[in-house]
């Protein structure tokens, strides 16, 4: 993994484990995430990749009985510092979920600026600007610019997912976590979102969970392969997909199990 070092470190986990009750969903994962790169987490269903992702912005705090041990650092700061409000972390580290999650009673506009309103921005002009910028970034602007006042729930599934991305981008997160963002979408919408990831990586650090290996190889710079809760192999995507070091990785990549 020598060639991995050359980029700037953004996020790091050291011996991170996540427990649901007694059973670890993620076991002792140490991983370095590099600034303004796309890192893909791949592996078969139930291998802990989503669980790992949700540990990075303390989403497990919301789940009864979930416990995280080990360290997770962003820019050297401990994410799990007990004195640190998880709300602050989540404002830095945005998230896009598997299912599109617009707030159905809010308008498209209000959905996009929801995060900004939370932190007290009320200036109409600024909100307008951010709304347009975020919707352009998520490639939704042209489709919705004439109906920003209609409910977010009235959009199609692919548009709703791009709206969710715009909403996450509006607060200018440093890191964007994407949990299988295209798994409930049609191929065309999937294409749009993959293009979008390519455009966004100049601005944010992206970590994407995907069960689609082609997607991982298309969009990511680095790939981490998880299996039964453990990190098996982590390297540049090209390396993982051409000459993985581990036998398990190779077996998974070549479709021998999954």
């Amino acid at each position: 993994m020598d060639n991995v070092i050359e980029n700037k470190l953004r996020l790091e986990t050291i011996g991170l484990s996540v427990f649901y009750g007694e059973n670890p969903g993620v076991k002792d994962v140490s991983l370095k995430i590099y600034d303004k790169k796309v890192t893909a987490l791949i592996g078969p269903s139930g291998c802990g990749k989503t669980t790992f992702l949700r540990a990075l912005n303390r989403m497990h705090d919301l789940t009864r009985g979930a416990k995280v041990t080990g360290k997770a650092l962003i820019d050297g700061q401990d994410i799990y510092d007990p004195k640190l409000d998880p709300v602050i972390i989540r404002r830095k580290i945005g998230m896009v979920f598997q299912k599109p999650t617009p707030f159905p009673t809010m308008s498209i506009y209000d959905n996009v600026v929801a995060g900004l309103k939370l932190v007290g921005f009320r200036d109409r002009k600024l909100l307008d600007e951010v709304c347009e910028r975020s919707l352009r970034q998520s490639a939704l602007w042209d489709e919705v610019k004439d109906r920003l006042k209609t409910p977010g729930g009235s959009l199609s599934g692919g548009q709703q997912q791009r709206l969710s991305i715009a909403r996450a981008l509006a607060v200018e997160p440093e890191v964007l976590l994407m949990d299988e963002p295209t798994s409930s979408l049609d191929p065309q919408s999937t294409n749009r979102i993959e293009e979008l990831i390519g455009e966004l990586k100049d601005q944010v650090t992206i970590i994407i969970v995907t069960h689609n290996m082609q997607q991982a190889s298309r969009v990511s710079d680095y790939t981490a392969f998880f299996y039964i809760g453990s990190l098996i192999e982590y390297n540049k995507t090209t390396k993982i997909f051409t000459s993985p070091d581990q036998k398990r990785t190779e077996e998974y990549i070549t479709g021998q199990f999954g």
Partner: protein
Amino acid sequence: MSDNNTKKINVSPSALYGWLGDRIFAVSVFVLGFIVIFTTLAMAISLYYEGSEAITRFGFWGFLTGEKWDPAITMEFGAWPFIVGTVSTSLGALALSFIPAIAIAVFTAEYAPHWLSHIIENLVNLIAAVPSVVIGIWGVFVFTPWIRDTVEIPVYIWSLENAPGLTPILGNPIGYGMMTATIILTIMIIPFTTALTVDAFRMVPKEQREAASALGATKWEVIRMAVIPYSRGGILAGTMLSLGRAIGETMAVAMLIGNKNTLPFTLFGPGSTMASVIVNEFREAVENIHLTSLMAVGFYLFLISLIVNLAAAYIQRKYAVTGGRAV
């Protein structure tokens, strides 16, 4: 495998649905469903029919707006005082109960630790299940004397000295009256609104809460941004159903409202509602016109309840959020 070995299975659709068991089942559920509709219609029609003498004598609107209810001498009957009593006590109870009920629901569903929310939920259901006559007798022996001595009399004396203009609105501080009935109704409907609101909160998808949290929302902001908007249909429908219960509540109100049949009603003074006048007078209604007038009040009460329930169904559909879409 040759084609000779495969046998085509042909099943006609009619054969699938024609089996005797299916038929019997379909017919019986149809009949049972129809009985519900039939009973409701029959009840409305027979109430109207039984009350028609009063309605024809005083007129549909005349009976509705008639302020006189005199079963002793003139035998003139009008439902207006009872409509005023029903509407003001139930709307008053609705207004008083809404905020506490929602607050209890938010605490129970979102803030309380698991064991506590479990206890609160069971208590709420228990209060909702207490027979109204029990609440009535508690009101008669405990609540009425208490509110008379601690609220009504001091306020009345204060107004005599400081704001004489208020005393006619306050009315006699006897304990039995509109305010007491309204407060008891409030206590009785809070559990309903709370229980239905808690259910509505629990139906909010986990994804909605997580989406708000992931934006950096605090707990209260998650509730304000994701939970309450998503469950607004359920909350409103629950409120309307509670209103329906307040409108129809009979025993506790009849025991506490003081039962005065003439307007004007005052805040502390006695009054009556459509339900309370029926339960109080039907035993003594010897004159035919008196009895049919009570029937007619029953008919109007039926209509109002029907309208409130239909409105609840309409509101729920209009404001419901389904599958991520606001309809």
